[in-house]
Each structure stands twice: as C-alpha cells, then as structure tokens.
C-alpha cells in the first residue's frame, strides 16, 4: 500500500522539480521553472475557473441539499432509510452514465431543446452543452449526495426542542434558521462542503464531457499536460499544487474539530 501510494506521490513531487526532456521524458536537473510556469495567465484562468466552479457547485449543493437533508431527518424513522436510499442510488450509478444523461438532455438536438421548441417557448435550438453552465449542472448533479449525507447526520442529531423554543420566543422563520439551526448543524455543513468542494475542484469527467474545448478545469489541464503535451514535470507541478490546495481544505476541516473517518463515512 505504501509502495503504491506514497512512492508514486513522492515521484510526482520529485518530477515537479525536474525539467522536461527533449523527447517528452524527464531530465533530472533541479529547477523551479515548472512552478514559475504556474503563474502563466493562461493557467491562472483555468485555476480561477476551477475554483469558481467548485465554489459555485458547493454553494448550490448546500442550497439544494439542506432542505432535503432537513426534511429527511424530520421524517418518521422508517421513512428515513428509504429517503436516504433514494439519495444514495444515483450516487452508486456509474459517473460516466450520469454525466452522459446530461449530454443527452442538453445537446443541441437533445431533449431540452426539443421540448422547449415543441412547447413553443422558442423556435431555434440553443447551445446548452459545452459551457460552464453545463459543467456546473453536471457537478451539482454528481456531488449532491455527498452534501446530503453529512447534512442529514447533523440535522438528525439536532435537538428539536431548541428549535421549538426559538419559535415560542417569537423568532421569525429566517432567524430560527440563521441563529439556531445553522450554528447547531455547522459540522455537517462544513463536512458536506469539503466533500463536494474537493472532487469538484479536481473534476475530470464532467468538464471533459460537458464542457467545451475552451472550458478546461485543473483536472483536464493535468491530463492534458501528461497525456497530450507529455510535459510531465509541468503536469506534476500542477497536480502537486492542486493537492496542496485540497490538503489545506482538509486541514481547515480538522481545525473545526472533525475526524477524517467521519468525513468519509458522512456520519
């Protein structure tokens, strides 16, 4: 396990400080040029887009997932299992298949356009696929269950009498949510946000299939440098910075008194 995980990671780290060989291989001369390359505006735009899309995905998942998680936790016990199962089934379905479903719906000759034209909403099909919006939909669709599970675990533990007390004390709906429910479910919210943010940031399939040639994310950039450009040192530098970013997010989670295994199990 150690051999096949940590040694490869160390090789990536080492290669990120090496130079690109003439034939696309690796030349072992120490340099920092790869990291200097990272500041290239071209790459910067890709990081910016990735972070923005990952943040937007996280926010949307939170917005969609909170009411769902809350009402699951409030449902009768025997219904909770069924609801959770319903949330989990799409998660167990092949990711490629789930992404393809959106290609089928969003493409120019796809279901959405056909439907809108038949309903008379518009006369010409519009290009929905191959855009940042399509990526966003795909990411939210793909990672929503990651948000719902920890949120459910947190809201399930929430003491209802506290919420009732707030109502009795004439709090408005908004302030009950903002001042009572949200602070008490904060660990779940943070766990959910991290579980959605990390895979969204490193996403590869979603931007590859739903995004266009001009809407690359970091995951695609790494793959592009490795397999297309064959510039392994640069690819390594990019993936190592990505990992550093992710580990920072995880450490932020630790700071808020979380445990890694709980994060993984979502409970």
């Amino acid at each position, binding site marked *: 396990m150690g051999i096949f995980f940590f040694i490869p990671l160390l090789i990536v780290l080492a290669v990120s400080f090496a130079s690109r060989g003439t034939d696309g291989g690796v030349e072992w001369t120490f340099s920092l040029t790869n990291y200097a390359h990272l500041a290239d505006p071209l790459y910067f735009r890709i990081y910016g887009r990735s972070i923005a899309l990952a943040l937007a995905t996280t926010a949307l998942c939170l917005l969609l997932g909170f009411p769902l998680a809350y009402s699951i936790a409030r449902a009768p016990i025997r219904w909770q299992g069924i609801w959770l199962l319903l949330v989990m089934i799409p998660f167990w379905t092949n990711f490629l298949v789930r992404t393809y479903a959106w*290609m089928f719906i969003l493409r120019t000759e796809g279901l959405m356009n056909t439907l809108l034209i038949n309903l008379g909403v518009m006369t010409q099909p519009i290009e929905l696929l191959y855009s940042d919006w399509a990526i966003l939909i795909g990411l939210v669709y793909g990672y929503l269950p990651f948000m719902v599970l920890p949120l459910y675990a947190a809201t399930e533990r929430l003491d209802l009498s506290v919420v009732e007390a707030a109502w009795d004390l004439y709090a408005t709906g908004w302030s009950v949510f903002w001042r009572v429910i949200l602070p008490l479910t904060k660990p779940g919210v943070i766990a959910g946000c991290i579980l959605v943010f990390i895979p969204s940031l490193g996403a590869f399939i979603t931007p590859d299939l739903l995004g266009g040639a001009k809407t690359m994310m970091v995951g695609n950039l790494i*793959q592009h440098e490795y397999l297309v450009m064959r510039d392994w040192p640069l690819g390594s530098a990019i993936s190592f910075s990505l990992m550093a970013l992710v580990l920072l997010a995880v450490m932020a989670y630790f700071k808020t008194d979380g445990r890694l295994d709980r994060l*993984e199990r979502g409970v």
Partner: protein
Amino acid sequence: MNRGRIWLRSASLANLLFLYLPIAVLILFSFNASRLSATWQGGTFRWYLVLVEDQALLAAVHNSLVVAAVSTFLATVLGVSAAVGLERLPAGRRWTVEGALLLPLVIPEVMLGVALLLFFVMIKVPLSLVTVTIGHTVWNVPIVAVIVQARLQKLDSRLVEAALDLGATPWQAFRRVTLPLLTPAIIGAVLMAFTLSLDDFIVTFFTAGPGSTTLPLKVYSMIKSGVSPEINALSAMLVLISMALIGLSLLVQRQRH
C-alpha cells in the same frame, strides 16, 4: 410552521426529481426506435441486441470483471489487515497512521491516476490489466479499511479478552471470534469495492495500456464519439447492475439485524 413544512416537502421532491429524471429519461429513450431524434418514435429492443453482439464490448466487460474480482480480493485482504492492525496501535500513533491510510480518499482521483502512471513508467512496468488492477487496489484499500474499522470500533473487546482467557491463541481469537463478528462489514466492503472498481474511470484511464480496455473506458470512448441509442441501452443496463449490487448489499446488512 405549516407553510415551512410544505415548502420543505416540495423542495425535497424537487431534489429527488432532479436526481432521478435524467436517469429515467436516459433509460426511457434506450427503447426509442429513432436513432437521431429526441422525440419518441415508438419502442424497440434493437439497441440492446446491437450491444450483445458487440465483441469489443464483451471483451471490455470481461476485463472489467477480472480487474474488479482480483482488486477486490486484494483490497479486502489488505484493508481488513490494516483496520485490525490500526485498532491495536497506541492512540497517538494511530491517528497518524489513520491519516496516512485515508489520504488516498481525500486527494483528487486525477492525482492518484497521474502518480501511478509516473510510478509505473519510472520502474519500467508496461501498462496493462495488471497495472489497472494495482491502481484499483490502492484506491479500494482505504475504503475497505474505513468500513471494517467502523464495525471494529463497535465490537465488544471483552469477547476477544474472554477468548484469550479461555486459552485461545491470538490467531485463534481473531479467526474464531473477531472475524465472524466482522463478516457483515467485510461483505459490505467487498460489494462496495467491487462496484467502485467496476465503475472506476479515472485511475483506469491513466493506468491502462493498449489492449486493457475496461467497460468504463469503452463507455467513455463511445460517449466521446457522440450520443447514440446504444449508449442509452448500455447505460440502462449499468444502472440496473448498480441497483442489483446495492440490493444485494442491503440484504446482507438486513440479515445482520
């Protein structure tokens, strides 16, 4: 309060629709007679028949099953030993080892893919089904370990102590007491690892060589060459298989109680 509840209920239903409608539509249109249109042109099973006769696809299914079986076996053995070993470490060191063990789960999968690719190229191992299997094993060990460990923590440690007091060797105590108690968790972990291996695309994408196409790689190349009813049919079958596997794992869990 009541208005709030109605609002919550409808938000949840909207969520479920969002989760299920795309898959439902996908399956529905796998029976559509028209090749190109997204309008319903009558039902057919033609696309399923095309799939069953596709030799390259069948070879990919075969590869996927072999990789999933071998990597699940390896990951289970390693993952269970890791979980059991971890439980015996003193608390301070355990935290560090646990973090290291779970790290593969929190880094982006692309990162693991490129790291393995570099590693195999550096030690001059040609990419093949073997490298894919190793990749899947690395990916699955922490998952098995997490599931088994969760169960292990709930075990009554007095049972093992009783076995030792009654003269069992540590191995006997593990084999006859701990292992049977862990079985439901191990079966759950096996099913999970098998499903994840069967579905894995990213690690496979980086560690597969020529001739080691697995089912997800085949699906990917089909999708890349454009939307077609055959992919819809294949997707429908994959959804069905996933559901069957979840059903199976639920049945196993049910028996535990």
